[in-house]
């Protein structure tokens, strides 16, 4: 894959319609479906790519490369690609493939990718791509819910009693939180000879 696409990172949305096959209503509906999924599973996201693929590549390989080299613009940037599911659909070629990250691979059975595709095929056969997205999201949700632990979402309009320690307590998550902290100690001054 690297000789074909290279090893550069690419920026993608959750819905990338390079084939221009999604209608506006379907796109809005699919966005709402994906929002619900990501609200229910804060760690997980699904990305869809619609476009014509080179004949030498199958959609599973393209999904594998996108998952390893893509920066997906999800509402929560902190989501890790290990919990991602990427679906690649070639409307012209009539093929569809999917790839899942390491975290989901460790939880889901081996038949899970095939099950996700099977849920999409009826809608894709009728060129109803919005319905295919909803079917895939529903399938992933049904597969993951038995494996997850339910926790109530606590949304408070006022800061908690322990708020004030950091900006994250107020919902301000720094983009470079994973970077190495700068050394607060001053650099040693060079002594003049």
């Amino acid at each position, binding site marked *: 894959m690297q000789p074909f696409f290279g090893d550069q990172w690419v920026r993608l949305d959750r819905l990338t319609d390079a084939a221009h096959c999604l209608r506006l209503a379907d796109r809005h509906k699919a966005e709402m479906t994906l929002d619900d999924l990501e609200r229910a599973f804060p760690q997980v996201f699904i990305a869809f790519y619609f476009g014509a693929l080179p004949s030498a590549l199958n959609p599973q390989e393209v999904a594998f490369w996108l998952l390893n080299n893509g920066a997906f613009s999800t509402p929560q940037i902190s989501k890790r690609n290990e919990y991602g599911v990427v679906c690649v659909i070639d409307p012209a070629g*009539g093929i569809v493939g999917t790839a899942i990250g390491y975290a989901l691979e460790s939880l889901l059975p081996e038949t899970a990718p095939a099950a996700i595709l099977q849920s999409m*095929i009826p809608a894709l056969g009728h060129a109803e791509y919005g319905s295919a997205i909803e079917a895939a999201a529903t399938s992933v949700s049904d597969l993951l819910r038995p*494996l997850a632990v339910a926790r109530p979402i606590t949304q408070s309009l006022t800061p908690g009693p322990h708020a004030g320690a950091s900006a994250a307590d107020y919902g301000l998550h720094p983009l470079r939180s994973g970077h190495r902290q700068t050394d607060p100690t001053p650099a040693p001054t060079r002594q003049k000879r």
Partner: protein
Amino acid sequence: MALKRPTPILIALLICAAPLGAVAQLSEEEILPLPQWQPGDAPMASPEISNMQPPPLLGLLPSLTPGPGDSNLSPTTRPDTILTPLLTQDSAENSPAGVGYRPANLSTFLPESLLDSGRPPAAPPHTPTAASMLKDVDAEFLKLCNGSPASELLIDPLGLITEVLQGDLERFLNFHAQEARFPLYIVVLKSDEKLPADIDLMAMASGGIAKKPTAVLAYPIAEPWRARLFLPKLAHDSASNSFLKELLEACVKEAMSSPETDEQLHRFCVELSTRLFWLEKLCPAVRVAEKPAVPTVSLQEVVSKDSAPAPSQTPLITVTPPPTGDPVLRWVVFILCLLAAIGTTVWHGMRTWRKSKARQQLKTAWILPERDLPQRLGGAFSGGTGAWTRFR
């Protein structure tokens, strides 16, 4: 000349005597002075006196209301100009002399002894007789009723009503018998008596009741709610139960509007007479050719809910079931309504369940456990696990 001489002397004497006469008149006025009225001497009208009812002095004093004979009087002597009665719309209870009469406070002008002399003693309020205290009329009473002449429509062998009312009622009943189709016989009972269950009303009034269709009213004095009305079978069957019930209730209500026992009976009869005129309009006319040679007259009692004499008798007012249609159609309608109700309930339940589920999903987050897998195929986030297929 002799007469001419004393004339100046007489004139002088008369002139001198005139001031003396005036002086004598003034002295008489000083001896018998007129009463001097001061503002504080006016009689004070107490509230008790003001609330007193007019005394029965209508025969002694001129009428307080304009009567038929007052038109001949001069304007200055007519009662309304003398006492200036306040012609207002008073209730019947406060105006025994008629509408527009307001009781005048005669105690302001007349001594108290004169006012109280003609007042009849107030009758004590009647206590309703308990059902257990009621007794049947005796055989002597029935014998007197049976021996009463057929022409006497008011049968009061015990003389329970006053002579004045008796005369009024007799004239009233005779007038009713002349004008109405069903004459009305009234049997006056004591307040603690009732007709026996096996009484033969046809034998009363020397058989006058059996000769032609008549209405018979058994009226216990002072207890109009226990009055029993017997109508000819023709009239009874022609009228509806609601009409007969309303007839009795209206008569009782009219009688109860007065506290006086005689007035109760009078009002009861007047109302009943009016209702009997209405009733006869509901009865079919009997042709002469169809009339049998021997008339079969029978009486049927009007029974209402409030004055049912005996529970053993079958009440005339029965609850009729609603009209029934096709039973199959009723079952079909019932099943359709039942299915509609079930469908509506299921639809509403599913809608509520979906809403609650969606609301619950919005409040619940599903957290997956974190596990580390060794990297494969050089992938930092995915090892190539997936699938692909053709959908066309």
